[in-house]
């Protein structure tokens, strides 16, 4: 009975994963096994250390902002009458539906320093022109902005569903127990949403660490390789520079850490599920 499942997992999960790991242990010409040397070399490389730092900054900042903005949007939507909710929800979901490569092109145009809308608006209110994609810190922030713009609707829709699943009577009980709106949020809403928050943050962290298209279209890793994340750097090293084993090593770099994080997060989710639901 489970044979098809085993076949699917072996063919579509285990084999590609092991092949990637195997690739990462080969030399540049893929003729000899060199163990973990690719990882050693990478860690000695200053550009790669920059990539680790930028990837972590990008993923952590973007996920935090997506979660906060998503929660704020969900909270607002939850408190408008059901009748009007649908159209607002639909409109807010638009960024998530547009293919990111396409929408990022739009952002790229908006970030253009001389002739585009954002700087024009800034100038109109007396602000300075900002070199959005030309200066490292602004470029880093730009990449995060676009990722948040693209990903926050997903958090919003998940949190909206979670908010709707909290029984009204718990809020009524809290109101009678003496809770203000804020205390209700802290002591009832958030604890009741902990599982969905853990899962969305975990999954988004994994997906954001693996993000490629936004960086590729917006900055292509520049200026001076300072906005590269694992995926875009892996593509540059593995495909553009032709060192496939080292590219594989780059893309596998975060895997052990994320696997450990995922293990603990999911274990916590399971435990709470058993205790509460």
């Amino acid at each position: 009975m489970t044979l098809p499942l085993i076949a699917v997992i072996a063919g579509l999960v285990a084999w590609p994963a092991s092949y990637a790991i195997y690739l990462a242990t080969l030399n540049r010409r893929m003729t000899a096994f060199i163990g973990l040397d690719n990882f050693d070399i990478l860690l000695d490389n200053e550009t790669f250390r920059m990539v680790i730092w930028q990837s972590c900054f990008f993923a952590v900042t973007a996920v935090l902002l997506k979660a906060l903005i998503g929660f704020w949007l969900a909270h607002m939507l939850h408190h408008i009458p059901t009748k009007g909710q649908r159209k607002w929800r639909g409109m807010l979901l638009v960024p998530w539906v547009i293919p990111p490569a396409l929408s990022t092109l739009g952002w790229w145009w908006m970030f253009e320093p001389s002739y585009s809308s954002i700087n024009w608006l800034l100038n109109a209110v007396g602000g300075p022109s900002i070199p959005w994609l030309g200066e490292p810190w602004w470029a880093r922030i730009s990449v995060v902005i676009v990722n948040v713009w693209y990903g926050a609707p997903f958090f919003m829709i998940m949190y909206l569903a979670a908010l709707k699943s909290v029984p009204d009577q718990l809020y009524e009980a809290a109101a009678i127990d003496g809770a203000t709106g804020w205390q209700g949020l802290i002591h009832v809403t958030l604890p009741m949403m902990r599982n969905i928050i853990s899962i969305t943050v975990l999954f988004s962290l994994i997906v954001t660490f693996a993000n490629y298209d936004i960086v590729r279209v917006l900055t292509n890793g520049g200026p001076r390789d300072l906005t590269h994340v694992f995926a875009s750097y892996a593509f540059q090293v593995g495909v553009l520079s032709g060192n496939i084993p080292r590219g594989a090593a780059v893309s596998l770099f975060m895997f052990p850490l994320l696997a450990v994080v995922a293990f603990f997060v999911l274990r916590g989710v399971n435990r709470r599920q058993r205790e509460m639901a």
Partner: protein
Amino acid sequence: MAQVTLRRIIKEYEGGVQAVKGIDLDIADHEFVVLVGPSGCGKSTTLRMIAGLEEISAGDIAIGGALVNDIPPRDRDIAMVFQNYALYPHMTVYDNMAFGLMLRKFPKAEIDRRVKEAARILDIGMLLDRKPKALSGGQRQRVAMGRAIVRDPKVFLFDEPLSNLDAKLRVQMRTEIKKVHQTVKTTTIYVTHDQVEAMTLADRVVVMNHGVIEQVGPPQELYHNPATRFVAGFIGSPAMNFIPCRLEQGGAGLQVELPGGVALPVPAERKARYTAHQGRELLFGIRPEHLTEVRPNDHRDNMAVFEAVPEVVEPMGMETLAHFRVDGAEICARLDPATPAAPGRKLPLAADMAKMHLIDPKSDKVL
């Protein structure tokens, strides 16, 4: 002091539907008042308005003499037990009970003392570390009550707290609630659709129907002297029998003439009360327990004997219920279990006319 006063309370929803149509009610300090009625009668809405969970459309609510119309639930000093308990699933039993005190910034030692005391009263001391999911329905109900008790509020509000329990546990928890009230003596307003709960728990019962109060009174008074046909039919189980009748002057005084030629004499002491209605079409009301078998040498006062043919006979153990028809109206009699009653066989019955009621079908008032 925690009296609760309702003055001309109205609850009107969008579109002009009125759930509560201007009720007045005075609840004394330490009193246990039960609001009872069928679903949709406005009893839960009334309770929720007292709690502050529902806005009032018009009227005044005062708790302990202070007007609370615009005061949020948290500042009304009330505690509420919900039908589905509404325990916080992520908190332990202890934290569920301590939550209200914690929000009110009570010292830790005082919180601990109160929670343990409530746990002792409710016999849930060994459950304090558990989460609600690990509790049975009855235990959750106790925790919900504990959460109310620890607060030591001015008023307890109960919203159908026993509806989710099975029959046996319901009876047990009913006793428990009564015991708790006898211990803590807090003013209590209790909503239920179950008239047995209402009768057994209440100092006074408030019967509601279609958003108005039909009658307020101690359980025994509602049972013996219902004011309206609704109250007469709602209080008591099995429900009171209603038979269309005419009130006529007979040879020995007033008599109730039922369809099918049965005439039952009205007790002499009711004469003054009923004379004005002589010759009218009325409803004759009598409870099943006042319609019994005829015992040998039965010489009870005001007894009227007639014959009926039961369609169904239900032996209950301590009594037997016999169902028959008088001109289409379904009638139930409560018999001694030793009575040899059988479907289709004639049975002499005795109506205790001292317990009869006459109802004006136009106004539905008991005469």
